[in-house]
């Protein structure tokens, strides 16, 4: 592999390292809080939930579908999770299964609409996101849900194993499972093939609708899991607490498409994207940048990364 190829393939990883180094240097001139083990662990904790949602979304995008409802589905399942425990007084395990089931159901409905009625997933999930918001408001009347959550449940979001937050370990497990799933199993390979060239895949004797459906369900499941973890971390559920995940995870997936397996949504790339977004958030915070700068920088990074890849004709949208 020559230098040009290397930069093409790992340029985004390089950008991650440069951004990291930049904040390390800037903060060294200030109080040097960025490059402490405490803060680094903090960054990982902050990005862990997004990483899980974005990992699920990666599977959908790898299958050639968009899911613009992950944030709203995560908010809804978070509200339901808290509500099941506090209002319905269900055991937390049952509540969790219920909330995750709702995520799967959203994926299932989206998948059915996309495959049966041939509505593009971009539009379908836009609608499903609104439906999730509606159900959310119908259930919680637009209020937050507070109450005593069981310790076993809050451990997911706040607990630590040694110095490592449990949620980071959970995220790593989820990432590993999905990575292995996509790359080492038949279904995973079919999902990648479907996203790569649906016509060729279908002519190869593969029921592509089935795999589009599975991919969208995985995305819904990831969103639900993210929503439940967020509530466990915060100790309460906000009606639109997880809405940001839609844009952040899409940004992470698109940034990820510029690296590792270029032009294709891939798990490791997505993780690079998640880390870039997380470090920018954390770093700007620590160096005392005004809060609005975070979103502007995130938006710019997304556009920059994708525009480079589009210029090299590696990614094509639509």
């Amino acid at each position, binding site marked *: 592999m020559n230098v040009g190829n290397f930069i093409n393939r790992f340029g985004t990883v390089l950008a991650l390292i440069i951004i990291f180094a930049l904040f390390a240097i800037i903060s060294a001139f200030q109080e040097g809080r960025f490059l402490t083990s405490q803060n680094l662990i903090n960054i990982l904790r902050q990005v862990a939930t997004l990483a899980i949602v974005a990992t699920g979304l990666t599977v959908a995008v790898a299958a050639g579908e968009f899911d613009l409802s992950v944030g709203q589905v995560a908010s809804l399942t978070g509200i339901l999770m808290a509500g099941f425990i506090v209002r319905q007084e269900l055991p937390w395990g049952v509540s969790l299964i219920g909330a995750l089931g709702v995520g799967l159901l959203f994926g299932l409905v989206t998948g059915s609409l996309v495959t049966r009625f041939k509505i593009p997933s971009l539009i379908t999930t836009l609608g499903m996101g609104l439906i999730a918001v509606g159900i959310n408001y119908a259930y919680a009347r637009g209020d937050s849900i507070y109450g005593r959550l069981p310790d076993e449940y809050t451990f997911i979001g706040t607990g630590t194993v040694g110095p490592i937050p449990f949620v980071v370990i959970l995220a790593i497990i989820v990432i590993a499972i999905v990575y292995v799933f996509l790359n*080492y*199993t*038949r*279904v995973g*390979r*079919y999902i*990648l*093939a479907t996203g*790569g*060239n649906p*016509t*060729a*895949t*279908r*002519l*190869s*004797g*593969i*029921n592509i609708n089935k795999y589009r459906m599975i991919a969208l369900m995985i995305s819904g499941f990831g969103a639900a899991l993210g929503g439940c973890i967020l509530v466990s971390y915060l100790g309460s559920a906000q009606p639109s607490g997880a809405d940001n995940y839609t844009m952040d995870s899409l940004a992470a997936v698109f940034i990820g498409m510029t690296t590792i*397996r270029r*032009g*294709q949504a891939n798990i490791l790339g997505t993780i690079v994207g998640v880390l870039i977004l997380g470090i920018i958030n954390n770093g700007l915070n620590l160096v005392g940048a005004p809060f609005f700068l975070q979103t502007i920088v995130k938006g710019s990074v997304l556009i920059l990364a994708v525009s480079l890849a589009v210029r090299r004709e590696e990614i094509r949208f639509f």
Partner: protein
Amino acid sequence: MDALLQLTGISKTYPGVTALDKVDFTLRSGEVHALLGVNGAGKSTLVKIICGAEPPDSGTMKLENQIIQVNDTADAMRHGIVVVYQERTLIPHFTVAENIMLGKEPANGQLIRRRDLHEQAERLLNRLGVEMDLNAEVIDLGAGQQQLVDIVRALRTEPKVMVLDEPTAALSQAETKHLFELLRQFKNQGIGIIFVSHRLDEVFEISDSLTILRDGRIVSSGPISEYTPARVTQDIVGHNVAKLEVEVKSTSGPVLMETQDLCSEDFNSVNLKIASGEVVGLAGVVGAGRTELLETLVGFRRADSGKIMLKGKHVQINSPEHAIRHGIVLVPDKRIEKGLLNRMNVLENLTVSSLQRYSNGMGWLQRKKLHDVATRTMDQLRIMPPSLTTSVQSLSGGNKQKVVFGKWLTWSEDVNGLIFMFDEPTEGVDVGARADMWVIIRNLAAQGAAVLVTSSDLDELMDISDRLYVMRRGKIVSEGVRRNYTHDSVLQLMMGG
């Protein structure tokens, strides 16, 4: 006549291939100059360079004895060089007038003067001697009319040089005739026309001179009067054409597939039989319904009525998945769109249809076995370079085609009793790979498979088939063993002349 456009020593290299090697080319004003060669010979690269879409690595281009530098297509247009591509470049729901004047709308500030637009379009049509309804939306027009809109638009700038890339590919005979009449008019107006085509009969009908490219070099060039069709073919293909000796079997095996009055919007009452051990050719012009028929037989499209019988039993084929379970596979045309997983490597492409077989009950891929079986297929088909991790995008056309076919060899080592369909198996592959594909197809039949092949290259089709069906406008118009046909008789049946 004067040299209008003169290219000297044009070279162009892409990574791994020399597309053009010191090419000289001269176009005179008022002539139709045919540009011929197999796919990959360098025709499209030369066209791209002339119209500014690609810069040459070296060489000069002179227009009316002035050296010109064209950096992009807009530049070429300013110099009076326009191209009409094979694909239409029209806005479907705009009218003919709007499409013709696209980008040159007369306007007051931002406000388009619709009446002037219409008038200008009308004046242009009059000047060119073309009759069209300017108010029709182009989406409602036939292929020939749509192309005419593209041509008229190209001519609105009064160009000196016009390049037509496969202009007749989508046209009916009547439309082609009409187009040629127009070309003769343009010629008389002094326009130099470069005519890229695969159809020799048309080349001889319309051209004044021709240039033949092979492997990026000019192999011959001169006035049309110096050529015969046989010489042109010889020059295009180079050395002796690899002829395959096919023994027509009077007795083939049992009939594997039979259709009864199969109908859809693209074809009508199709009855055909394919037997084990034979290669059946399906001849027809572009648009006759060949691709649609093949895609229906593998369940990629739906038939409206009629039956498909497999080994005498009626079966319903609703999807390729279904067809494959019955042992019917298609090697599609347009391999990049329909055949390849473009972002994946050779191994992933060769095994995509076989993952069921090479994964365990839990769905885990058996990577070692996949590797072994893909290696076997790769070696058997002599795919170059012999590397499973190469991205299929970087392969040559012939090797891509082998990969698309290879997935079915991986899928089943024993082809006896299977039904293989090939749609344009040698489209855009070089001479060597073409011969390889022929051997592959013949071998399948020899091993007991039933093979249905369709190709726009009639000579090839007649060379490899035991039996032929001729299709015209969605109907089978003739069927019989190959020796009952000649090239000309099939052509006549295809065209309906």
